[in-house]
């Protein structure tokens, strides 16, 4: 982390960049926030640890419009999002200095809460360089959890620790991929239609339409979402009836299909813990199955599967009922 801070300060000092986007220490040991750093003293609050899960690539849409170059700290998976944003002309590559930062998996404080850890005063063992357990000092005494058990679900199906775009790399990474990316999707596919319907109905009934999933999503980079659009007559604001949020989440997933890099931010930020990535991942799985493997953001030149076709594409009738056979 110190190396990262030093390097960013150096880049500002030598005029390469005007500002950096990174994470600022939170008021709790687990809630650092994405922030801009311009002055040397700003970096006193700079932090990069296991809780810095936010994908900063989308912030470059706005930052790219500012005068001068901006450095942005991107984890390996974030660089896919950035590439995708380049493909869609939403970020200004010239104005960006990408620091690829190492990653040993990001942490989810909810997992600690679920494990009954509360009244947290301080946390140790979440440093990016570390490799031990995470220790919580709480009002109710000391608690321990394995780093892996505290990790966000998405990190268990990590795309790999390679940055697909960067100007320089700082820090080491550790592989965290230890689960099958599509297993959850397969599990749902294996259910009966009634079970599937019940499952999604229950999950989506929690949706409060706060739009956090949409606003955090690097693929949802529309200036004005179609669901805020008064011209289309498609405006929706609340979970008035169980169908509205279904429609919202299906269409949202559809709009990012072929563009979603599976960064997992939607599920991370959902205040109701709805596994929203299951929609996106379903599309990814289908795209892989129907049109060949495709990883959005891997290659900014690659044609997205939904703006492409072959003469022999699968017929829609064959896209369904595949599990029935």
């Amino acid at each position, binding site marked *: 982390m110190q190396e990262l801070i030093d390097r960013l300060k150096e880049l500002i000092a030598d005029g390469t960049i005007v500002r950096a986007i990174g994470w600022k220490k939170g008021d709790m040991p687990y809630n650092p926030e994405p922030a801009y750093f311009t002055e040397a003293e700003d970096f006193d609050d700079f932090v990069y640890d296991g809780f810095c899960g936010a994908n900063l690539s989308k912030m470059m849409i706005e930052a790219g419009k500012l005068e001068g170059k901006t450095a942005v700290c991107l984890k390996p998976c974030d660089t896919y999002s950035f590439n995708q944003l380049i493909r869609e002309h939403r970020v200004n590559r010239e104005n960006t200095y990408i620091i690829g930062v190492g990653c040993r998996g990001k942490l989810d404080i909810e997992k600690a809460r679920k494990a009954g850890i509360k009244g947290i005063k301080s946390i140790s063992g979440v440093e990016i360089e570390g490799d031990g357990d995470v220790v919580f000092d709480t009002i109710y005494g000391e608690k321990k959890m394995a780093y892996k058990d505290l990790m966000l679900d998405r990190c268990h199906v990590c795309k790999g620790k390679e940055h697909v775009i960067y100007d320089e790399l700082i820090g080491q990474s550790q592989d965290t991929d230890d689960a099958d990316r599509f297993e959850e999707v397969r599990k749902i596919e294996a259910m009966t239609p009634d079970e599937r319907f019940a499952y999604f109905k229950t999950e989506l009934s929690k949706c409060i339409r706060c739009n956090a999933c949409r606003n955090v999503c690097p693929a949802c980079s529309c200036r004005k*979402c*179609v669901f805020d659009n008064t011209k*289309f*007559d498609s405006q929706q604001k609340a979970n008035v009836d169980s169908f509205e949020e279904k429609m919202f989440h299906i269409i949202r997933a559809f709009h990012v299909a072929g563009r979603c890099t599976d960064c997992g931010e939607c599920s991370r930020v959902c205040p109701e813990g709805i596994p929203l990535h299951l929609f996106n991942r379903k599309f990814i799985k289908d795209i892989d199955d129907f049109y060949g493997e495709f990883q959005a953001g891997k290659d900014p030149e690659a044609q*997205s599967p939904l703006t492409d076709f072959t003469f022999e594409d699968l017929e829609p009738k064959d896209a369904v009922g595949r599990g029935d056979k």
Partner: protein
Amino acid sequence: MQKIGVFVCHCGTNIAATVDVKKVVELVRYEPGVVFADDYMYMCSEAGQEKIIEAIKEYGLTGLVICSCSPRMHEKTFRACAEKAGLNPYMVEVANIREQCSWIHKDREEATKKAVILARAAIAKVNLNTPLKEGESPVTKRALVIGGGIAGIQTALDIADAGYQVDIVEKEPSIGGRMSQFDKTFPTLDCASCILTPKMVEVNQHPNITLYTYSEVEKVSGYVGNFDVDIRKKARSVDFDKCTGCGECSTKCPLGKIGKIPSEFDRGLKNRPAIYMPFAQAVPAVPVIDRENCTYFKTGKCGVCAKICPSKAVDYEQKDEIVTVKYGAIVVATGFDIINLDKFGEYAYNESPDVITSIELERLMNAAGPTGGHLERMSDHKQPKDIVFIQCVGSRCDSEEKGKPYCSKVCCMYTAKHAMLIKDHWPDTNITVFYIDVRTPGKNFDEFYRRAVEQYHVNYIKGQVGKVKPQPDGSLMVQAADLLDGKQINMKADMVVLAAAVEPNPGVRKIATMLTASIDNNNFLTEAHAKLRPVESPTAGIFLSGMAQGPKDIPETVSQAGAAAVKVIGLLAKDKLKTNPCTAQCDTLLCNGCSTCANVCPYGAITYDDVQVMDHGLRETRRVAQVNLALCQGCGACTSACPSGAMDLQGFSNRQITTEVDAICR
């Protein structure tokens, strides 16, 4: 809100027998926006239209809904009718209550109910209609033909004869294309150059035709009626105006004697000097210096041609020149070549000089060819006794990696031609043809083929050749399977001729990209409609001529060339083009500039520009989509690809369609 008039047609009893027309009128009166509703026996009749016009004037109608037959039938009629009354023609919607209602339903109540719903949907839609105006764009009265083969030549001549300026761009030093390499043509066996050369000369002398030989299209922008094309005129190193075409330079070129430069025209069966005309009848009759091989350009020494040129036409200092010309229409006539045979090692094409392609055979049999028209083996210059023809080399291939899935169409006929010509000159030659199928549809084609079999006793064997093995004695062993007898055949041959598959000229891909003309998996240009618009590309203003569109023989090529010319003439004859008003439109405030729409647009009608927008008081420069209305055909592919709903289609807007959905589901 619109003031809508609803007109329900009885269509005699066609509608009225099943749909209670009066009841429909009664019920639609309650719909929002409707101020007038009536029925009539035949709405499309003179009197019916009069009724509509009267109502428009009397009630100040701003929108019409006609419940009648299919809009495909009479939408135009009713639009014209609206226009007559001073109403914008696009304020008319037709509810199809005949084909999609009265004719297919029997129950009167049910059909009436459905008719009301269909009318209701149309009313809901027309409430959101806005007057649309056809745009206009000027037409540059000049056409460009890319490719100077028989297809390009014929197209250019036809257009030029109609009085329009045409330019031909040909990348080789001479026009003439593949046909100029041929000896005779099937099924009449006329001499190819005898019929082609006059056309080439005509092109050269035509006051309306400008030739750009040894030139390539570099850049295309604009749209139908208004293309801007950059043409690169490659340096010929010979002054066009001074050269008399005497040919002295080629004869004296030292490299001509050393002979290391294979002649492209003779398919490498002969060599040529560094300063050369591809063939004797070349048009224009002005040589070029092949700078890659010329000693002067390589070493700075030599300069023989410049010295001996009587008219001092050789100019080593010449540079490539780029000219920009405006065109109203572009014809792609880039023709074909045969496929590379590297993957067909079994036929020993690269191993033995006596395994040749049909086009090489054409040169070998041509009086102006490398052997002066004498058929001989390239290895030992002996006349071959046993000749084996192998059909479908790379055509109709199952595996696409090796060959092509399509039939090259011309091989069956030219092989019969070759066989007969050889038999004519050297009757004691044994000719065997291995074929998969013999395909001879076409005027006088089958007769021609039967002559080869019956009169000339050409040995046709339905079978596949597995291998051609060069033998130590210089002969070739052909191993094949006779599919009819199921027997293995081993046959000795002196010469093997391969009917290699044709493929579009490899350069076409680049050109198609520049023109945003779509291209299929085999690099053939796609036509706008396979049956109804076979000589037009889906991109407006781009036309197709010859093999670039698909395999065809000379007569077909010429007729297609004529057809393309007629389409071009039809376009150039107009002073202004009316553009389809149902085009896509981008709401710049909603556009993200993501290019998704441009990726799915089949017409290249969407471009991206940085524009200043005023977004609710916020001024910003943004990259946003711009629709070129002259190019957009209104398919709406962009609208469904656009995530934010910025792209919308006039006449079929998002809101209009959702409102129809709502009306139907109400």
